């Protein structure tokens, strides 16, 4: 959301109904607003990639591999395996970004990164991380700040 810079044009009315237009310098809330967006964005990006990676891996392991081994048809494995590989690279980025912003320990961070390679684990990791996110930001306000002024 657009946020007014440090020097801004104020248009407003006071409680008793007078109006004015002034150019003033006010402390900027931009860093905080940015921090809110960055934190919440990290969660959303991670969740999207976790589900994508998890579904592809389940298809790969429970559809592709039986087809290749039992029916001798490797096409699903070739296609889904490649797509999962590239999704997993994106997953790694999003997972690392979220876990470092939530200040997870190094070991837990590695477990979340590896969750994208074990069937169903990415889904479990997504649930756990989303709950952890909610717990660790419970005392924080995450809604975007209003850019307008509230002059009485």
């Amino acid at each position, binding site marked *: 959301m657009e946020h007014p810079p440090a020097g801004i044009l104020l248009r407003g009315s006071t409680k008793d109904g007078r109006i004015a237009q002034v150019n003033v310098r006010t402390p900027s809330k931009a860093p905080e607003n940015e921090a809110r967006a960055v*934190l919440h964005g990290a969660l959303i990006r991670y969740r999207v990639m976790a589900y994508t990676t998890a579904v592809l891996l389940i298809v790969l392991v429970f559809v592709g591999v039986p087809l290749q081994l039992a029916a001798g048809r490797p096409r699903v494995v070739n296609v889904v395996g490649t797509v999962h590989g590239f999704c997993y690279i994106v997953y790694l980025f999003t997972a690392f970004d979220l876990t470092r*912003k939530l200040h997870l320990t190094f070991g837990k961070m590695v477990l979340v990164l590896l969750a994208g390679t074990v069937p169903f684990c990415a889904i479990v990791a997504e649930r756990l991380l989303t709950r952890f996110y909610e717990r660790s930001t419970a005392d924080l306000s995450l809604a975007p700040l209003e850019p307008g002024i509230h*002059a009485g």
Partner: protein
Amino acid sequence: MPATTRHQVEADIRAATETTETRDRTDTETSQARSQPSQREGMWTSRRALVAHAAIAVWVPGCVVACWWQVEVALSGDSLGWVYSVMWPCFAVFGVVFWWHLVHDDPETLGSRGLRGLQQTPNDVSDVERRMLLEETITLAEEEDPELAAYNAYLADLARGDRPRTRRRH
């Protein structure tokens, strides 16, 4: 304006001025810390950094070996090996990127902790300060411009819900 509100605004002005000075100083310190991340003390030898050094020392050679193994798989006829022989170097590069972040990140200005720090500084004073500046500037503008003063007085009447006395007689 009722006298109590005027006093309230003046009290707000004092509070806002005091806390704004503190906040400006904090902002400067934070931006300095951000502009010079490599100056953070002990970042190469923190516990997390040491774990990261050990991990990257294992990870990158591991990726090189895995890449070589996939090249051999590809050469032996399985064309899927080419895909993985591209991916393993990617994983190595990402390992280096993650390692760099683990060393250079300052947890106190990052993510949830960083946001908590920002929200615990009293930054809701800006609304008060804006209101106070608006009050001051309106008063100054009214002193210079009697027409605006008259119009504002009319608006203030409207806002109070007062009706001109002539109306009440009808």
